[in-house]
């Protein structure tokens, strides 16, 4: 994204390009700016990078977008595990495209975060130091090929449920990144469903494999929506700022309601004996989610936390030569061009 120089700073527009967010005004000067900010959000308008924004809004967005970006790139690992062992060329090509998309989604999101005055190198350092999080779901292992299907159907399904409303969130660059991501995400979920459907209508062993994957991914997928509303401290503020449009429990319920009939078509059983239609509520009731497990995974005690982070750090270090080579090549090209220009003008 280009960073225009602030040639004409109008009132209410702080100097600085998209990469340099509005500097916070003094407390006395904040009131009219805050009023304008809140009115913009109340009118369902977008906040754009050079607009004044409260520091907490900026910091919350950086945290949320960074966590989202980290999830995209860490999310390449569980599925990447099956790239070399996909059962056919067709499945391999699909999986490659999907994993490649996750890298692209990370790129969109790091770019959106950078409009808030942070640099992706900084964010990656925070990820590698364990000071910023990624979605807890990626700390579970992909034990069989059916897991690739379960991830597409359930994990991407839950992600889509979360992300579609974010296309209308209050921060312009984030909303626009989400539009792009959601568009690309649509094939991810369907390839997963098709994969699982193939297995669940295959041999007995394949059916068992599909059921086993669903058993292991169902509950962690429900945890992707975050803690219950009464235990989600920042939710109210994020909803007031419209960087969150539905509560964790609302989205989770919506996801469950959508999944139950889909599971019937797949011919798999969702591993929750308490799952049943509640006529009165017009929703499916479900069993208790194991929040102790959720907290443990967040704390770093999930099955693959250490492995995921170690792999990410290693990839970063081992990829350093690529970044250096690209910079060296660019410098060489620049020197050649300078030489040619000097020669031409001599």
């Amino acid at each position: 994204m280009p960073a225009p120089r602030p040639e004409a700073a109008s009132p209410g527009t702080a100097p600085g390009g998209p990469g340099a967010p509005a500097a916070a005004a003094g407390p006395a000067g904040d009131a009219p700016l805050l009023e304008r900010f809140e009115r913009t959000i109340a009118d369902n308008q977008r906040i754009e990078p050079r607009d004044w924004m409260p520091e907490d809004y900026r910091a919350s967005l950086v945290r949320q977008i960074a966590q989202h970006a980290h999830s995209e790139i860490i999310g390449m690992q569980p599925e990447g595990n099956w790239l070399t062992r996909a059962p056919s060329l067709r499945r391999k090509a699909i999986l490659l495209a999907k994993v490649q998309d996750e890298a692209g989604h990370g790129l969109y999101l790091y770019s959106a975060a950078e409009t808030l005055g942070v640099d992706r190198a900084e964010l990656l350092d925070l990820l590698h130091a364990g000071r910023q999080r990624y979605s807890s779901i990626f700390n579970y292992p992909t034990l069989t090929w059916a897991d690739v299907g379960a991830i597409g159907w359930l994990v991407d399904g839950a992600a889509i449920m979360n992300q579609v409303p974010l296309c209308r969130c209050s921060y312009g660059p984030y909303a626009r990144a989400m539009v792009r991501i959601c568009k690309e995400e649509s094939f991810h979920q369907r390839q997963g469903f098709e994969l699982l459907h193939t297995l669940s209508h295959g041999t007995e062993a394949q059916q068992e494999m599909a059921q086993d994957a669903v058993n292991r991914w169902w509950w962690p997928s429900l945890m992707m929506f975050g803690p219950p509303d009464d235990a989600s401290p920042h939710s109210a503020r994020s909803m007031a700022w419209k960087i969150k449009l539905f509560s964790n429990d609302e989205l989770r319920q919506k996801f469950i309601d959508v999944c139950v009939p889909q599971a019937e078509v797949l011919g798999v059983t969702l591993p929750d004996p308490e799952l049943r239609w509640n006529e009165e509520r017009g929703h499916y009731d479900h069993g208790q989610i194991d929040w102790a497990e959720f907290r443990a995974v967040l704390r770093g005690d999930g099955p693959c936390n250490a492995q995921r982070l170690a792999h990410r750090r290693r990839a970063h270090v081992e990829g350093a030569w690529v970044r250096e080579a690209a910079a060296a090549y660019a410098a060489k090209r620049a020197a050649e061009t300078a030489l040619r220009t000097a020669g031409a003008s001599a």
Partner: protein
Amino acid sequence: MSTAAGTGSGRRTGPPAGPPPWEVFVRPRRGLVHQHVGTVRAPDARAALRAARHAFDSGGEPTSIWVVPTCEITASRPEHRGPFFAPAADKAFRHPTYYDIPAQVQHL
């Protein structure tokens, strides 16, 4: 790769007379991306922004305008179309409708 100005077509010889060109990008309203709307000629960025505001102001709500020196734009070339852009089109599996999903399945 070539710059947008002087693409080697031989149409222009020597440096352009007068002030240099600037590409103008306007955000029609909040929530939308800046879109390219045209070019102005101006001696510097400040003057380019002023010229752009006069030339491309839609008369609606205050917009955001970017001006970028035309010579700073690196563009792909039409003749690169094949190798540069081809991979996307022949991957049918990137389209949601490529997958066989039973008709009764909803919300997928």
